[in-house]
């Protein structure tokens, strides 16, 4: 203290002497010691902040001084930092100095002292240090509070890769505290009884939200920690560039580089500073900024872009002339005018930049796979004429502009499409035909390929076909086929025709394609030749033609199995004699037929060669349907006539006949074969694919055989599917059949004849009522001339009774009612007298009876006096015949008969009364005569009997009567 007062006194004296002898003061160095030292702490930044002043400086005096600062930790003797701080000191100035501690200041006491020296050039030799100031102690621990544990530093922000020191201060006396970095225990270093520190080297970035470091007391739940925010190193902005579109706003852009990985509040900011104007703006975006160009047309700009965060500051510079950084806006209002088939004029506008700027515009035209480029100088309006365009084609034009005076950048493109107008088709369609002959006519199917876009020059609307008869050239026919048809069919007579085909669009007509169709389809027999196809197609070649040929055409069907067939053709030049036909439609296992035509100078196609082949042959998928015939005990015949060799998936080379038998022996010509199922059988090979019958011989009678016919080809044979089973018959059965069958047939024939002629047979062989005249007995008698045996004459018979039945039907009654007033009478002939005769038989005589029927239609027996003389009555061979005759007669003469319907029943007295089927029988049938063996009854309708003059009278009845007369 005494020393201090002495010093002070000396200092005061010195000051006084300074004022008095100023020139001497400058020459005499004096130690201006630092005074009024104050130490403060910035806990966030872990900084010790020192401020002091230097007294005894004259007013306006400036002195270069060096201050040496010493920092000790924990105790004063432990100096950890010495620094010389040089500065110019002014009068009454408060000096500041900061020091950032690596160890958090809260964890240890720090001591600080300083001394000074004059470091002026004027007095270089006079350099002495002042005395040290006293130690200033910095102890934050006391102000921490009473919590049991503290961890420092709080919320520190560091760069990735830097070293950080963490420490804790514990209030408890126990040292059982462990600290963790993201769950991993850290090894520390004890600083004091309750203080430990942890050095973290090269800290890594873990996450944006920071790295947790925490400590806890082992016994207890006290947890304290800090969050360390680790930032990635801030990068310098890249590609910093400024440009203007309109000379009023500068747009500056840059690439900020990788993200620092900090929370938004900690991340970097960007500022833009222009040194000529001294203006500075804070950019709102991370990668671009707008700068308003000053109206006083500053030409040169010097920009500094600064990226800055809490840890680092990065700057880039850019010096440029504004007019050299003009990036025009994209042109606008792009239009096309006067668009024709081959020309179009394009116009556009540009945004003006100042008054004296000329823009260079680049115009690109895309179309038909080509690009053309033109450069045009533009002030306000641009115009360019495109020539040599294709008709009916869509083009895309685009334009961009740049400053013509000083090129910087092209503007964005502005695109616009346009389509040229249509023009008449430029090429004739490629036409081909297929000629078929049908019923004397020539059916010509015309095909044409659609024109290429370049040839069509627009949308083809229709095809015109002119058919010109070359024989009678005046007659020609015009057909118009609407697009998109690619063919048509015309029917021509057998004449020579010339066909012109043209394609038409809205503008005009194409040149004509001419083809001559001769009436003769020209199917000259041309040998079909086989070709082998590959995956790539069919290689075809033909003989060159000696006569004049203008070209060749090869045609084929893409889908030969379809009815439409999809005819294709290929035009080839006159010097060509081979080609490869390939098509995506070719499939394996399909036979394709190719026809090669030569086109004569008269444009007449004539068939030169035919080729057929497969792009790939496939084994047959199925076997022929075999019909077996002529089965004998030793052979049978197989036939597969329906099998089409043409429609198989490969060329049929022949057939294999497989025969399985129990014997297992193969005859000559056959060979043994083992099938896939290990069955052994005999195989016969038929080499000729056209041979479709085969006789299997040398078989055993009454044996079981199985056979299979399968085609074979170069790629294999058909499937060994189901065998057909056959059993040969025994040797004799065919002979037996030969005898038995005709016999059965004969018997059947006789039976049928007998059945058909049964009536005749019955009559001939076993009539119901034998006719004695017809009987062979008679002839026998006659031959034997036996006088004793005679045939009974009807005259000799006395009639017994006759029954007439009258039947009326309701439906017909109304018609005949008025006229049928008279009842039918039945005449009963007395029989008593007839017994007088010796003959034991009874005959009845013909008599006329009235047919008038009563309404009651009673069929009762009415006695009739024998007024009417008995008419002649022929002996009828059959009562049924008679009845039929009568009926027929009746039906014929119904209209003439005035009476009601009358039925006549003949009742055989031998027969049962129920045997009559045509009408009801009398309720009281006549008693059969006791002695009668045969009775015949007969009735003839009155009308018939009395008035046979009717034209429609029954022929049979007349015949009957005639017969009766004859027999009489």
């Amino acid at each position, binding site marked *: 203290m005494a020393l201090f007062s002495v010093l002070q006194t000396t200092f005061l004296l010195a000051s006084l002497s300074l004022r008095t002898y100023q020139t001497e003061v400058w020459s005499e160095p004096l130690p201006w010691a630092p005074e009024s030292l104050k130490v403060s702490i910035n806990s966030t930044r872990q900084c010790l902040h020192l401020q002091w002043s230097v007294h005894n400086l004259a007013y306006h005096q400036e002195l270069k001084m060096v201050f040496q600062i010493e920092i000790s930790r924990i105790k004063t003797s432990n100096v950890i930092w010495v620094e010389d701080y040089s500065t110019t000191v002014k009068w009454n100035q408060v000096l500041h100095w900061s020091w950032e501690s690596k160890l958090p200041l809260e964890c240890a006491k720090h001591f600080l002292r300083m001394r000074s020296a004059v470091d002026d050039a004027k007095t270089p030799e006079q350099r002495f240090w002042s005395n040290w100031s006293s130690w200033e102690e910095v102890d934050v621990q006391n102000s921490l509070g009473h919590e049991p544990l503290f*961890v420092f530093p*709080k*919320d520190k922000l560091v760069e990735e890769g830097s070293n950080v020191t963490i420490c804790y201060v514990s209030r408890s006396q126990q040292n059982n505290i462990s600290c*963790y970095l*993201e*769950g991993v225990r850290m090894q520390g270093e004890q600083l004091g009884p309750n203080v430990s520190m942890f050095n973290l080297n090269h800290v890594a970035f873990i*996450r*944006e*939200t*920071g*790295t*947790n470091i*925490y400590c806890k007391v082992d016994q*207890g*739940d*006290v*947890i*304290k*920690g*800090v*969050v360390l*925010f680790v930032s990635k190193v801030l990068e310098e902005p890249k590609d910093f560039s400024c440009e203007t579109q309109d000379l009023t706003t500068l747009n500056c852009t840059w690439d900020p580089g990788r993200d620092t990985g900090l*929370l*938004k*509040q900690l991340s970097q900011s960007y500022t833009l500073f222009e040194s000529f104007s001294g203006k500075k703006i804070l950019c709102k975006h991370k990668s671009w900024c707008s700068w308003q160009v000053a109206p006083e047309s500053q030409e040169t700009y010097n920009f500094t872009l600064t990226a800055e965060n809490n840890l680092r500051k990065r700057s880039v510079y850019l010096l440029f002339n504004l007019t050299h950084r003009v990036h025009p806006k994209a042109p606008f209002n792009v239009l096309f005018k006067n668009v024709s088939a081959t020309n179009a004029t394009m116009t556009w506008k540009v945004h003006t930049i100042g008054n004296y700027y000329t823009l260079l515009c680049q115009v690109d035209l895309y179309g038909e796979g080509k690009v053309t480029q033109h450069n045009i100088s533009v002030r306000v309006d641009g115009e360019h004429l495109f020539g040599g365009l294709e008709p009916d084609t869509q083009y895309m034009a685009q334009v961009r502009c740049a400053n013509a005076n000083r090129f910087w950048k092209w503007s964005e493109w502005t695109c616009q499409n346009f389509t040229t107008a249509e023009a008449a088709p430029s090429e004739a369609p490629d036409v081909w035909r297929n000629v078929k002959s049908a019923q004397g006519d020539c059916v010509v199917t015309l095909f044409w390929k659609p024109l290429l876009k370049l040839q069509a020059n627009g949308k083809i609307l229709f095809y015109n076909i002119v058919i010109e008869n070359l024989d009678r050239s005046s007659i020609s026919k015009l057909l118009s086929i609407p697009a998109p048809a690619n063919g048509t069919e015309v029917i021509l007579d057998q004449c020579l025709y010339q066909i012109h085909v043209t394609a038409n669009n809205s503008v005009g007509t194409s040149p004509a394609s001419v083809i001559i169709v001769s009436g003769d389809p020209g199917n000259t027999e041309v040998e079909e030749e086989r070709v082998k196809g590959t995956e790539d197609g069919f290689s075809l070649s033909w003989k060159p033609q000696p006569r004049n040929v203008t070209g060749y055409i090869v045609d084929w069907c893409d889908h030969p199995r379809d009815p439409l067939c999809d005819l294709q053709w290929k035009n080839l030049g006159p010097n060509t004699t081979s080609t490869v036909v390939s098509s995506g439609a070719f499939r394996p296992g399909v036979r394709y037929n190719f026809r090669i035509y030569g086109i004569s100078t008269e444009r007449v196609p004539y068939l030169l060669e035919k080729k057929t082949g497969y792009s790939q042959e496939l084994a047959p998928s199925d076997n022929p349907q075999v019909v077996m015939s002529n089965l004998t005990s030793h052979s049978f015949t197989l036939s597969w006539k329906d099998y089409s060799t043409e429609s198989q998936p490969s060329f049929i080379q022949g057939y294999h006949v497989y025969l399985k038998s129990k014997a297992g022996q193969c005859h000559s010509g056959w060979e043994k074969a083992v099938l896939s199922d290990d069955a052994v059988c005999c195989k016969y090979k038929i080499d000729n694919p056209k041979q479709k019958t085969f006789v299997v011989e040398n078989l055993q009678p009454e044996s079981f055989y199985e056979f299979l016919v399968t085609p074979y080809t170069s790629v294999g044979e058909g499937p060994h599917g189901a065998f057909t089973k056959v059993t040969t018959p025994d040797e004799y059965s065919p002979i037996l059949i030969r005898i038995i069958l005709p016999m059965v047939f004969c018997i059947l024939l006789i039976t049928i004849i007998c059945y058909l002629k049964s009536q005749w047979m019955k009559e001939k062989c076993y009539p119901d009522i034998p006719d004695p005249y017809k009987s062979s007995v008679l002839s026998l008698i006659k031959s034997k001339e036996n006088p004793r045996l005679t045939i009974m004459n009807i005259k000799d018979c006395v009639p017994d009774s006759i029954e007439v039945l009258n039947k009326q039907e309701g439906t017909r009654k109304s018609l005949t009612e008025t006229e049928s007033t008279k009842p039918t009478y039945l005449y009963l002939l007395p029989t008593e007298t007839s017994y007088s005769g010796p003959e034991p038989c009874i005959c009845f005589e013909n008599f006329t009876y009235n047919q008038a029927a009563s309404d009651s239609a009673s069929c009762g027996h009415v006695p009739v006096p024998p007024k009417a003389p008995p008419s002649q009555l022929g002996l009828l061979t059959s009562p049924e015949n008679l009845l039929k005759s009568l009926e027929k007669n009746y039906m014929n003469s119904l209209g003439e008969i005035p009476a009601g319907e009358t039925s006549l029943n003949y009742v055989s007295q031998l027969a049962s009364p129920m045997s009559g089927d045509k009408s009801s029988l009398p309720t009281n049938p006549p008693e059969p005569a006791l002695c009668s063996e045969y009775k015949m009854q007969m009735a003839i309708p009155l009308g018939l009997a009395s008035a046979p003059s009717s034209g429609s009278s029954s022929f049979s009845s007349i015949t009957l009567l005639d017969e009766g007369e004859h027999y009489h």
Partner: protein
Amino acid sequence: IYCGAPFCLLTLLLPPHSPGAPISPAEPISQAYSLALYMQKNTSTLLQTYLQYQGSPFSDPGFSAPELQLSSLPPAAVSFKTWHALDDGERLGHAQGAFLALTQHLQLVGDDQRDLNPGSPILLTQLGAARLRAQGLLGNMAAIMTALGLPIPPEEDTLGVVPFGASAFERKCRGYVVTREYGHWTDRAVRDLALLKAKYPG
């Protein structure tokens, strides 16, 4: 009933309030009980979501620090005897006070997390939803107290002066305590309301 949004729940469960008219306590008790049960289902999810976003040690499996408390937030833990001895008014009063504090703390935690975890909208949404539900329960409890004729304690600023200078780690701890106590207080409210429900059957 879950309407998908906490606002919906709020409007559903806030009872129609007509002062003066005597209301049966059974209905507001039942409504509050339903809400408390619903909240109970989501409290552990909230806590787990919260911890998951805070990093170690919070996100370590089985993390628990019961010693961590906030002086501004009354702890839910209470001895059964004490709890049982409470009368209805005290029981409801405690819960009312706690949920009032919780709504304010949840707001604070939400703000903290908006700074610390700006890229986690799920957590922020859950915190917001929890706060709204706590407010809803407060309204229900007020209705019960009105129905029972109990005086409603005045709303007070339980948070007091917020230590804005809290470090990031302290804020993480604070959020943990709040979300944890929110769960505990919800559990206790369910018990409180179950007791009341038994006392005032509908």
